[in-house]
């Protein structure tokens, strides 16, 4: 079976399983509103989990989420009226809590790596099932509730700590579900205390509903988080493609330099050696033919050098922006001042993108703007490289039509940055770009 069909089958089973559970609850005299909220919570996990599973098939987080939804209804079958089913339902009534803790701890990569988290998982799984078995035999429910409270408290502390320790890029992923989890765990804790104190469910109805709505917010938080996760993965893969392309261009430039360029240079020197050896008494038709060949070769070498630099500037590899931006300004078609460049080295894709922006912006300025002066600045701040290329030309440049500017916008977006063009007619053009120094969120550390 295709995984798509498997997911549909699980979805249908989940709806049936949940519907029967709701019927049992209502039959057993439960408040029908609460039974329906209960149904909505379980199905939100199932449907949300299956949806995110489809988007990220390799990530086990979403299987855990789907499982949590299915297990949500197990406890309801304790009122089924068939002894075997009743006993099994009681024994496995906390499977949803076991899977939910696993889901929370495994999110977002689908792996639980910290030894402490693994221990919590095992204690929770074995403990909750064992205390339910104890309840079946002796009728004592307190051990189960106390363990539930302890795990709830532990995870409730652990989750905000994870968020606090996470780097900024990762907080966007962790934030939505973990916020929902924290609030809900608090409500669950209160609900457990309510039961331990023996307050009747009707009297505690408000807190139980608050818990259920909070529990409903968790799967929604996870799905929102999964959007961010998929977006970050797309950004990472775009950044990787750009990085690989840059590395390839650097290789081609080096090959051109080590190969063809060296040969032509040696050839041009050889021609000059011949010219020298001919001496002053040589036939003028020979020397002028030789000079013409030398000139042609010189032009060819210059074109090849230009081509190699266009593919990937060696100055960028060797010196970073501190060398490359002044080199661009020096070759620019209009007098260009460099106001600021960062002294140290930056990640290669950041340098390559910044170089591309400055290079294209200056080329455009020289071609279309009629400017008499241009300026470039590159400054670091807030984990960002901020570029500004300004000219005093005619303005009127539009990043939505000119292909050169569209290419720039795309190139900067590929590494997670943004580029803006301010170019009022008659008022010069200012191109500013912000490029994050950490372009791959997957590389920005683990929470």
């Amino acid at each position, binding site marked *: 079976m295709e995984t798509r069909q498997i997911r549909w089958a699980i979805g249908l089973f989940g709806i049936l399983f949940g519907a029967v559970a709701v019927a049992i609850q209502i039959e057993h005299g439960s408040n029908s509103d609460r039974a329906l909220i209960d149904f909505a919570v379980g199905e939100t996990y199932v449907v949300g989990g299956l949806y995110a599973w489809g988007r990220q098939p390799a990530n086990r987080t979403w299987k855990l989420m789907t499982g949590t939804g299915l297990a949500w209804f197990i406890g309801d079958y304790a009122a089924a009226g068939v002894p075997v089913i009743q006993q099994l339902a009681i024994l496995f009534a906390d499977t949803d809590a076991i899977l939910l803790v696993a889901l929370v701890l495994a999110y977002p990569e689908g792996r639980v790596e910290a030894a402490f988290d693994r221990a919590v998982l095992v204690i929770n799984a074995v403990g909750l099932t064992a205390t339910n078995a104890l309840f079946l035999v002796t009728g004592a429910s307190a051990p189960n509730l106390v363990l539930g409270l302890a795990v709830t408290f532990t995870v409730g502390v652990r989750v905000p700590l994870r968020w606090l320790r996470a780097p900024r890029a990762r907080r966007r992923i962790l934030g939505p579900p973990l916020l929902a989890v924290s609030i809900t765990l608090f409500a669950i804790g209160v609900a457990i205390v309510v039961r331990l104190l023996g307050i009747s469910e009707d009297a505690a109805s408000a807190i139980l509903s608050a818990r259920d709505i909070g529990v409903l917010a968790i799967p929604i938080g996870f799905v929102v988080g999964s959007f961010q996760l998929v977006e970050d993965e797309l950004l990472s893969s775009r950044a990787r493609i750009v990085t690989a392309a840059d590395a390839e261009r650097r290789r081609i430039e080096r090959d051109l*330099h*080590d190969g063809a*360029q*060296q*040969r*032509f*240079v*040696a*050839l*041009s*020197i*050889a021609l*000059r*050696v011949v010219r*020298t*050896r001919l001496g002053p008494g040589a036939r003028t038709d020979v020397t002028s033919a030789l000079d013409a060949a030398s000139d042609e*070769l*010189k032009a060819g*070498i210059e074109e090849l*050098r230009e081509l*190699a*630099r266009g593919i990937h*500037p*060696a*100055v960028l590899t*060797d*010196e970073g922006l*501190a*060398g490359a931006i*002044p*080199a661009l300004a*020096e*070759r620019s078609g209009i007098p260009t001042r460099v106001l600021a460049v960062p002294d140290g080295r930056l990640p290669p894709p950041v340098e390559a993108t910044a170089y591309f922006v400055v290079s294209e912006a200056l080329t455009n300025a020289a071609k279309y703007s009629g400017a008499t002066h241009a300026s470039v600045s590159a400054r670091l701040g807030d984990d960002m490289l901020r570029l500004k290329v300004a000219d005093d030309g005619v303005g009127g440049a539009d990043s939505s039509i000119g292909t050169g500017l569209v290419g720039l916008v795309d190139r900067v977006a590929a590494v997670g940055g943004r580029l803006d063009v301010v170019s009022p007619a008659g008022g010069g053009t200012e191109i500013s770009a912000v490029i994050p120094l950490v372009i791959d969120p997957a590389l920005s550390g683990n929470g």
Partner: protein
Amino acid sequence: MEPERTTLPTLLIVDDSQAFRVQARSLLEADGFAVIAEAADLASALAAWEETRPQLVLLDVNLPDGNGFALVDLLEADGFRPIVVLTSSRDVGTYRRRLERSRAAGFIVKDELSGGAIRALMESAR
């Protein structure tokens, strides 16, 4: 025609391209330099330097085991001050920043190499 051997400035050529070394040697010998050694990388350049002590080093920036700037620094650190002329088939703009900080006498782009260009840099290095 040939000038007196003792008056010729002595030169070490360091470049990993054999074709370039051969052509540069012909050209510079014709232009009145005594090419007394050749080397294809930094390590053999150091050895050749120890052995021959030339007045001049024509030094490619990009070598298989490092860059020419490093050799300039190495010789400098050893207390030697040969006149080093850096060269590359890439243009001067590529190396502007490091050239400014280097003790090398100057830079000549390879296809503009000539005895005259080297002499001009020797003059300015004095």
